C-alpha cells in the first residue's frame, strides 16, 4: 500500500501560561492508503494533537505533513479549510452534531461547501444515512436519537463528501460496550469494504483491536509499531 499520510520530524509546541510545552517531539509516521490505525496512549501523550495535525485542524511547529502528496503544513487557513472539506471526514467522541438541525440536515452540512444542488445534497445525505443504517431517522433531531445513533449520524456526515481520510477522536468514548462494538464494526466495514483510510484515537484496547495497526504515543514520541 502507498503512503497516504507522510509525517516527518513533526513537533508541536504550545504556550501555556507563558511556558512553552512541547507535546510532540519529532514524530515520523507513514499511514498507507486503506490503513486503519489506532493511536493509543495515556492522557497527555499527544495522540489528539497528532490526530488534529493529520486532519488539518492544527499546524505543526516544525516538520512536515503530506497527505496524498500535498504538504498540508504549508497551507494557509483558507486553503486548509478547503482541503479539509474535500479530503477529511471527522468523527468526535461527543458526536458534535448541530442540535437545531435534523439528522438529514446535519449530514448535508459538508455538502453546503460543494456545488451540488439541494436535491443532490439530499440524495447524497440519504445514501450516507442508509450506509450507517439510519435512513428512517433522517428527520429526527439529535436529541431524539440515542448516543449510538447520534454517532452513526456523525459518521454519515463524515462520509457524505466521500473523503479520502476518516479521522476519529475517541469515537466510542461515550458509548456502552455493545453500541461501541457496533460503531467500531461500522468503521471497520468502511475501511474494509469502502477502502477508507482511518486514523482513530482511543484509549480503549478493545476498540483498538478493530484497527489493522496500533500505534502507541508516550510523552509525544511514537513507540515501535505493532500490527494487528
Amino acid at each position, binding site marked *: 500500500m502507498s503512503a497516504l499520510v507522510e509525517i516527518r520530524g513533526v513537533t508541536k509546541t504550545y504556550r501555556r501560561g507563558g511556558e512553552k510545552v512541547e507535546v510532540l517531539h519529532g514524530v515520523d509516521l507513514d499511514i498507507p492508503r486503506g490503513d486503519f490505525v489506532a493511536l493509543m496512549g495515556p492522557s497527555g501523550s499527544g495522540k489528539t494533537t497528532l490526530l*488534529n495535525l493529520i*486532519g488539518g*485542524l*492544527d499546524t505543526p511547529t516544525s516538520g512536515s505533513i503530506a497527505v496524498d502528496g500535498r504538504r498540508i503544513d504549508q497551507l494557509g*487557513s*483558507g486553503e486548509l*479549510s*478547503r*482541503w*479539509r*472539506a*474535500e479530503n477529511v471526514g*471527522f468523527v*468526535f467522541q461527543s458526536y*458534535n452534531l*448541530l*442540535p*437545531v*438541525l435534523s439528522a438529514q*440536515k446535519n449530514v448535508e*452540512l*459538508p455538502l*453546503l*461547501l460543494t456545488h451540488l444542488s*439541494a436535491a443532490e*445534497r439530499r440524495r447524497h445525505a440519504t445514501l450516507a444515512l442508509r450506509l450507517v443504517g439510519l435512513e428512517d431517522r433522517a428527520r429526527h433531531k439529535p436529541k431524539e436519537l440515542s448516543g449510538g445513533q447520534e454517532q452513526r449520524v456523525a459518521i454519515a*456526515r463524515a462520509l457524505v463528501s466521500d473523503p479520502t481520510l476518516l479521522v476519529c477522536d475517541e469515537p466510542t468514548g461515550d458509548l456502552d460496550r455493545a453500541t461501541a462494538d457496533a460503531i467500531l464494526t461500522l468503521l471497520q466495514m468502511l475501511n474494509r469494504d469502502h477502502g477508507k483510510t482511518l486514523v482513530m484515537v482511543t484509549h480503549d484496547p478493545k476498540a483498538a483491536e478493530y484497527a489493522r495497526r496500533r500505534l502507541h504515543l508516550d510523552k509525544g514520541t511514537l513507540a515501535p509499531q505493532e500490527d494487528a
Partner: protein
Amino acid sequence: MKYVPLVLAGLFRRKTRTVLTLLSVLVAFLLLGLLQAVKVAFDSGADSADAKRLLTTARYSIIEPLPIAHLRQIERVRGVVGVAYADWFGARYQNESNAFPVFAVEPARYLDMYPEFTIAAEQRAAFARTRTGAVAGQRLVDRFGWKIGQKLPIMSEIHPKTDGDMNWEFDLVGILDADDPAVRGNTDVVLINVAYFDEARLTGKGKTGWFIERIADSGRARAISADIDARFANSPDETKTQPEKEFAVGFAKQIGDMGLLVTRILTAVFFTILILTGNTMAQSIRERVPELAVLKTLGFSDGQVTALVLAEAGLLLALGGGLGMTIAVLFLPFLNAATGGRFPPLFVGLDTWLLAGTVAGALALAIGLPPALRARRLRIVDALAGR
C-alpha cells in the same frame, strides 16, 4: 440561498429569546415609521416649499393686515415674476371643533402660484368667474362629505359681513388635490374668492394678510426680499419678506422642534435596541462556540463563519425592521381616518424606508460584528477542547 436554513436554525435556536428580541426590534421600527411620518407631516410645509417663492407679511406681526394696493408695487420689483395674496378668514364649520384654514384669494393669481396643487380646468375657471365661489381640499371634501355645487356655510371668527352677521355662505365649485402625498396636507384648505369677500365684509376692506411672490432666480431671494421691504420702509404698512421655506420652518417651530424631538426619541429607542440585541447576539454566539468550531472543522472558512454570524444579525434586523415598518404602513391609514383630516396626512415615504434600511444595516453591523469577529478568530482545537 443554500445557507439560509443554517442561518435560520442558528437564529431560532432559542425560539423564545429570538421572538422576544424580534418583537423589541419590531416595536422600535414601528415607532420609527410612525414618528417619522409625524415629522414628515410637520416638515411638509417646509419640505414642499418652493425656493422661488417668497412670503411678505406685516413687519411686526403676521396678524397685521397689509393693503392689497402693495400688489402693484411688489410686481414692479426686479426679479419678481408673479404675485398673489391671501387673507385669513378664521373659519368654523358647523361647530367649534371643525376648524380649518380658509383663505380669501384672487383665484387665478393664487392657483398660478401653487402649480403643485391640482384642480380640474373647468373647476378652476368656475372658481375664477364665481364671486361666491370656493374650492376645497380633497381631504376636507371627504371628511365632511361635500359635493361640488352645494352651498358651503362657514362662520368667520374675524370677519363679520356688512350686516354684522358672522355666518357666510359660499358655492363649492372645485376640489383641490396634489399628486405628491407630502404636499397633499397643504391642500387641507378652503379658498374663497376675494372679490366677493372683500366687498361683503364689514371691516378690513382693501386689506389682505400676506403676499406670495414668485421670483425668477432663487439665488436672488435675499436681495429681492430686501428690495420689496425697502419699498415700504418708513410707511404705515412696513413689510417683512422671506423665502417661503424660512417662513414655514419658523411657523412650525412655534409648535415645537418636531424633528429634534423625534430624533431624540428614536436615538433613545435604538440605543436601547442596540444594547439589548447586541447582548442577545453575543450570548447566542457564546453558547454556540463548539458548533461554530464544528463548522470550521467541516471546512467552513473563517470568512464563511463570519458571514453566517453577520447574516443572523442581518436577518434579525431585516425581519423585525421589515415587520415593524410594514405594520406602521398598515396602521397609518387608520390613524389618518381617526384624526378626521385635522392633521396633515401621515404616510411612510421612500425617505423613511431608506432611513429604516440604513438604521437596520448599521444596527446589524454593530451587533453582528463583535460576535462575528469572535467566531472568525476561533481556534478549532481550543474550541473543541472547551478552552
